[in-house]
């Protein structure tokens, strides 16, 4: 044992536990609106993640216990389950989680070494491979009871008289995008559709607010810093506001963007992932802002209804560059261009 001989009793597990804790309100709200389907997905994802992690650790010849206990695999599973449609088939979440853990995390060297956010890798794989399945979003207080939800997830069987359309609906983001593409009327009239609530999706806006609450808890606990979330929301707003002011009939209001879809989940739980994000404060600002911009661009001009995963993955690629460019000068030193400047 070497100096320092004393250490602050903070561990990776504690950090991960706090993040998991911060997700609980959102889970509770989701279950209230959408039923126990989410709990099923959470359990499936957790079990798959832990098994996959353990198997991969074994294969890599690394001790399994300390890494399973760190909670990072569980967190990945939860984030993934929360971003996927709750009414997705059981194998969908399993495949996505497997990809997240095996390819997104362990193949890169496990905890701390993954350049991409594993949960977003899993989500992107599912989104790209099974676009149809990924559109099965449940409706709040939908027609399926718990048993029916279970049956639907595991055997794709619906109670008599119900069709797929009757139990699922498009997300507001999806709906707006399709309708506008089809040359639909202005935003105001589109917003009359049943899936819209006060600000964004009915029900889902409350889940989003729960994410906000969890995020504030993490900020208060100093588990995350404010730069990345703030910058991400700022980036999103920075594009949303001018376009909305310019053509309010065609571009939905910024507040909708801030609450809809996975915005707040991404802001407080995804872009704040330390492993795949930059480390310096300035780097976090750039990273978050970039994610915000990309989310808006992909949502409004791109091919997918929601964009958090792709935006985050794209910015993940840029992280080493951001880190390199934003490395603050050491104590008492000026910018690192100093040397070059002297010679020039």
């Amino acid at each position: 044992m070497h100096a320092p001989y004393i250490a602050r009793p903070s561990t990776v597990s504690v950090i991960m536990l706090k993040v998991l804790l911060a997700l609980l309100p959102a889970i509770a709200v989701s279950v209230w609106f959408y039923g126990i389907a989410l709990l099923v997905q959470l359990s499936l994802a957790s079990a798959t993640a832990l098994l996959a992690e353990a198997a991969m650790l074994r294969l890599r010849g690394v001790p399994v216990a300390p890494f399973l206990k760190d909670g990072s695999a569980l967190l990945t599973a939860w984030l993934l389950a929360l971003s996927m449609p709750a009414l997705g088939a059981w194998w969908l979440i399993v495949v996505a989680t497997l990809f997240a853990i095996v390819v997104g995390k362990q193949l890169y060297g496990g905890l701390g070494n993954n350049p991409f956010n594993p949960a977003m890798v899993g989500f992107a794989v599912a989104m790209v491979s099974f676009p149809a399945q990924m559109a099965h979003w449940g409706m709040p207080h939908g027609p399926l009871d718990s048993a029916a939800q279970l049956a639907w997830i595991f055997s794709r069987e619906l109670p008599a008289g119900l069709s797929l359309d009757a139990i699922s609906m498009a997300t507001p983001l999806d709906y707006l995008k399709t309708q506008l593409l089809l040359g639909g009327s202005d935003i105001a009239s589109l917003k009359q559709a049943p899936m819209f609530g006060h600000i964004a999706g009915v029900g889902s806006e409350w889940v989003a607010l729960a994410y906000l609450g969890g995020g504030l808890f993490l900020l208060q606990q100093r588990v995350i810093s404010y730069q990345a979330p703030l910058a991400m929301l700022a980036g999103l707003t920075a594009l949303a506001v001018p376009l909305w002011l310019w053509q309010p009939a065609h571009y939905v209001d910024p507040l909708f963007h801030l609450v809809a879809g996975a915005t707040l989940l991404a802001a407080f739980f995804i872009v704040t992932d330390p492993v795949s994000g930059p480390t310096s404060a300035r780097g976090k600002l750039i990273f978050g802002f970039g994610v915000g911009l990309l989310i808006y661009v992909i949502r409004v001009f791109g091919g997918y209804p929601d964009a958090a995963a792709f935006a985050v993955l794209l910015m993940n690629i840029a992280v080493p560059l951001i880190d390199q460019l934003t490395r603050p000068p050491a104590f008492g030193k000026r910018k690192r261009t100093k040397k070059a400047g002297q010679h020039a």
Partner: protein
Amino acid sequence: MSALFRFHGGIHPPEFKALSNGTPIATPPLPARFAVPLSQHLGNPAKACVALGERVLAGQRIGDADGRISAAVHAPTSGVVSAIGPHAVAHPSGLLQDCIVIDSDGLDNWCAPSPLPNWQDAGDDEIRTFLRDMGVVGQGGAVFPTSLKLGVNTLEQLIVNGAECEPFISCDDRLMRERAGEIVDGIRIAAQLMRPRTVLIGIEDNKPEAITAMRAACAGSGFEVVAIPTLYPSGGAKQLIRILTGKKVPHGVRATDMGVQCFNVGTLYSLKRAMMDGEPVISRILTLSGDLARPGNIEARIGTPFAHLLAWAGIQPDSEGVIMGGPMMGFDLPSLEAGVSKASNCLIAKSRALFPPRPPALPCIRCGECASVCPAELQPMDLYWFAKAKDLGRAQEADLFDCIECGACSYVCPSQLPLVDFYKFAKDEIWAAERDKKAADRARMRHDFRQLRLERDKAEKAQRLAARATPAPASSAAPDPDKAAAIRAAMARAAEKKAEDSHAPAKTPLSDDAKRAAIEAAMTRAAANKAARESAVSTAAAPGDEAKRAAIEAAMARAAARKAAQGAAAGAEAGATPVAMPASPSQPKPAIDDAKRAAIEAAMARAAARKAEQGVEVGAASAAMPSQAKPAIDDAKRAAIEAAMARAAAKKAERDAAQKGDN
């Protein structure tokens, strides 16, 4: 009260100062044996200046400073030098270093103090030498010789470091509480020497008694005691300078270049003791803390074995090793036999309760906590990454050497990584690589120079050889051209002497022809002798007939000699060309010279031969056979002489005959 600044980062570790700061500075009994390290400071170790078995007095200098960056060491008590050599020291490596071991005589007799009373008037050099010889070094941790820090005489701020930010340590705290007056005297000396505009004394606000004591001592002096917020590592010189002045002294820049200098309170205390009391640094205040029955601060003589102090303080049986220094930057003491040095500020007896083992380390998750607490504003996770991958170049680019190894990053690391260990490793590797590279460059230079020298020597030798060879060149036809040439030259010279007409063409005699010529010459000689004898006899007996016969014989001899010379010339003409030719392929240039020389010699020889021909006796030149060179000379000479005698005799005979005829 000046405004305070903030340095980036910093941590609030638990303090544990109450363990040791409650009791006054104690003086433990002296041990029987002291081990005084010769290297207690940055720079060259001191050179022992006492002999084995010598009796020393307390305060007597036993090691001289070696060079500019060095300091003297002194005997901590009176006694006998019982050993000078490798001994355990307080170093993390556990390696031995040279120490002077003194067996105490128990009397603790002091030598006469030698203060520098007129220090106000003394020159810089005098003060420096004095401090160096008194062994005054920085007691904050770096043990930099104080003499070298005093060289500046204009300064904006003089910073006095009483921050003492590391947990457990309270030696400066007690020193300030109990000996504030002497510290302030020390500050006065430093201030007079360096003439700062302001003097700021920084003390962390967790030491209110020390602040009060120092404020009281400073009353009326103009020195400002500043209470700074408790934050590790505000006791780092750069950090304290930042807090008090707002200046950031970067790595590689001297604080004095930015108008600041920083001294530890302990240093100023020992400065005062040296200057005003003439007492060299043979003791220092040391905190004994941790798992001890009687923790506290002591005034420990340099060289006191740690085991002695710990036993006195009542080390607990369950303690698991001893930390030298604070818990943030200290190290495990490899041997308790080592003696107190000027750098020893704290001993902490470890126990499982005080220092629970860290949980197992996990990989870095780049949470950035380390960067947020790093007082050097580095990105510790990057440094860790590079050091771990042994990518030393990039570690250096990421300002590895700006790291002050304060341990804050490791303290907060949720992955429990021993970050500082990685930095120390990387730094040492870089130093070693640099040493190796320097050595390799020097070796390369020396090797290249050696090659150059060898080339040069060779060239010079060749030149000398060439110069020596010029006057005595050779025809390579003979086995030893030099010798042959020399002989030939000698022959030519000998022949030349006789030569009267050098213009006439002649031929070089050789081998068979020469032999024949020699024989004929011998025959001529014999004939001439006979003629001379006979003519002499005949002169006496029958002059007329005898003279006539002698004249006839001489004429015959002349004819024979001419004939011999002609035969020799014919052979030489054929042989002369092949003589020079074979030389050309092997040594082109000298060969030409040789050929020329050979030609000249041949010409000379020809001239000689011609002369010989004229004077009957041919043998001289024609006898030049390489195999019989020396005898040939003699023969030629003799032949020449004989020929001359024959000539003379013949002339005489002719004259006599003519006289007779006239008569």
